[in-house]
């Protein structure tokens, strides 16, 4: 059945390059999360603002992010913005697409977390003489953080997996991009992509474990 000889040494020799790619992958995932969190906070604010235009924009963002493929969102950044004369590099398109996606999912996560905290908590803070913003910061926010934390780390893992989509718009410096480039030169597809798979797996596990450890330290109640 197998007439194929696996040649792993080539793939192992490429390990340093693959790891460089892994760093870029992590970098994009982290940046996309940071941007996503900031936008998600703004979107949540818009949705709660009571302003109809702002909340319609926020709702549309969330629905589009959640109901279309991530790859579609990256294509939008890469090809779609061309209509406005904006031509993003593969790196920027990828980052923009994933950040857009993260923001949508995180906004929904934040809204859920906010809803889960009863009004009576704010009331209790207010009746101790706290102004609204202080009550929010000292009482609501920390409780929100706990509820939103695990879903947010899941989103981080998703962001890492999504970075692999960059290769479809010509990204060639992240883990998937470098793997694809090595593959195109050597045709050792299985070996190279198996290596990449292992690295992705390890990164995903490391992030999950780190997040658990962090949650365990932060949320003792």
């Amino acid at each position, binding site marked *: *059945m*197998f*007439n*194929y000889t696996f040649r792993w040494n080539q793939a192992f020799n490429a390990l340093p390059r693959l790891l460089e790619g892994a760093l870029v992958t992590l970098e994009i995932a982290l940046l996309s999360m940071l941007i996503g969190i900031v936008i998600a906070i703004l979107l949540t604010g818009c949705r709660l603002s009571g302003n109809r235009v702002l909340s319609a924009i926020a709702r549309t963002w969330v*629905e*589009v992010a*959640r*109901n*279309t*493929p*991530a*790859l*579609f969102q990256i*294509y*939008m950044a890469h*090809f*779609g*913005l*061309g*209509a*406005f004369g904006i031509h993003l590099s593969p790196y920027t398109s990828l980052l923009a697409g994933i950040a857009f996606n993260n923001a949508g999912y995180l906004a929904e996560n934040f809204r859920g977390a906010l809803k889960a905290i009863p009004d009576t908590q704010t009331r209790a803070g207010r009746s101790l003489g706290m102004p609204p913003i202080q009550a929010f910061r000292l009482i609501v926010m920390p409780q929100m953080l706990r509820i939103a934390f695990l879903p947010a780390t899941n989103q981080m*893992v998703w962001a890492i*997996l*999504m*970075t*692999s*989509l960059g*290769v*479809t718009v010509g990204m060639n410096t992240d883990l*998937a991009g470098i*793997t694809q480039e090595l593959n195109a030169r050597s045709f050792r*597809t*299985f070996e190279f*992509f*198996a290596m*990449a*798979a292992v690295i*992705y*797996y390890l990164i*995903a*596990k490391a992030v999950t474990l780190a997040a658990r450890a962090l949650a365990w330290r932060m949320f003792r109640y």
Partner: protein
Amino acid sequence: MFDTALTWNDMAFLAQGAWMTLMVTAVAVVAGTVMGIVFGVVRYQAGPYWSLPLTFVLDIFRSVPLLIQLVLGNAFQSIARLGWDPFTTSCVILSLYTAAYCTEIVRGGIEAVPATTRRAARSLGMTWRQDMRYIVAPLATRVSLPAWIGLTLGVLKDSSLVLWLGLIELLRASQILVTRLQEPLFILLICGAIYFLISFPIARLGGYLEKRWSPND
């Protein structure tokens, strides 16, 4: 309406792409769900310790990018001389991917059935099979359905990645038109609208069922 070079032929081309998306999704969801139910029951019955190998393998499908899985699957079928066409390969990989998520949903659903309910069933003289069939299955389905709908939506979106193996599904069809007609925004917006049209009703149904079947009603 718009000044566009898009013809009805092109729309038919997009529709064919959408049909491919639906086919791949349907196969993956059906096959993945069947496997997910089997694996889920096995995982639950075997307990966390004995099902560790299964858990580990399924976890790989959830921790490695789908795109990489598709490439690996394709490389594997060629190495093993299975002679699969891209459609078959895509369906196989996407089914396993779906099964990996579905297993967790099924296991969660079974675990949500209170032990007391099951003990009551067994104490009425029901066999394990009867207990599973008449008590666990209906209750677990209720609990799992919203998550399963979410999974279906996820697979619908993730099925776009099969374009990497050369299948012309909705997104790839749009991309081909974009390249030919040079109207990226308009065509991609149509593409997004079609995704939306397919997934929005399903999402609504999910939300409705979640509300209707929430445990404390």
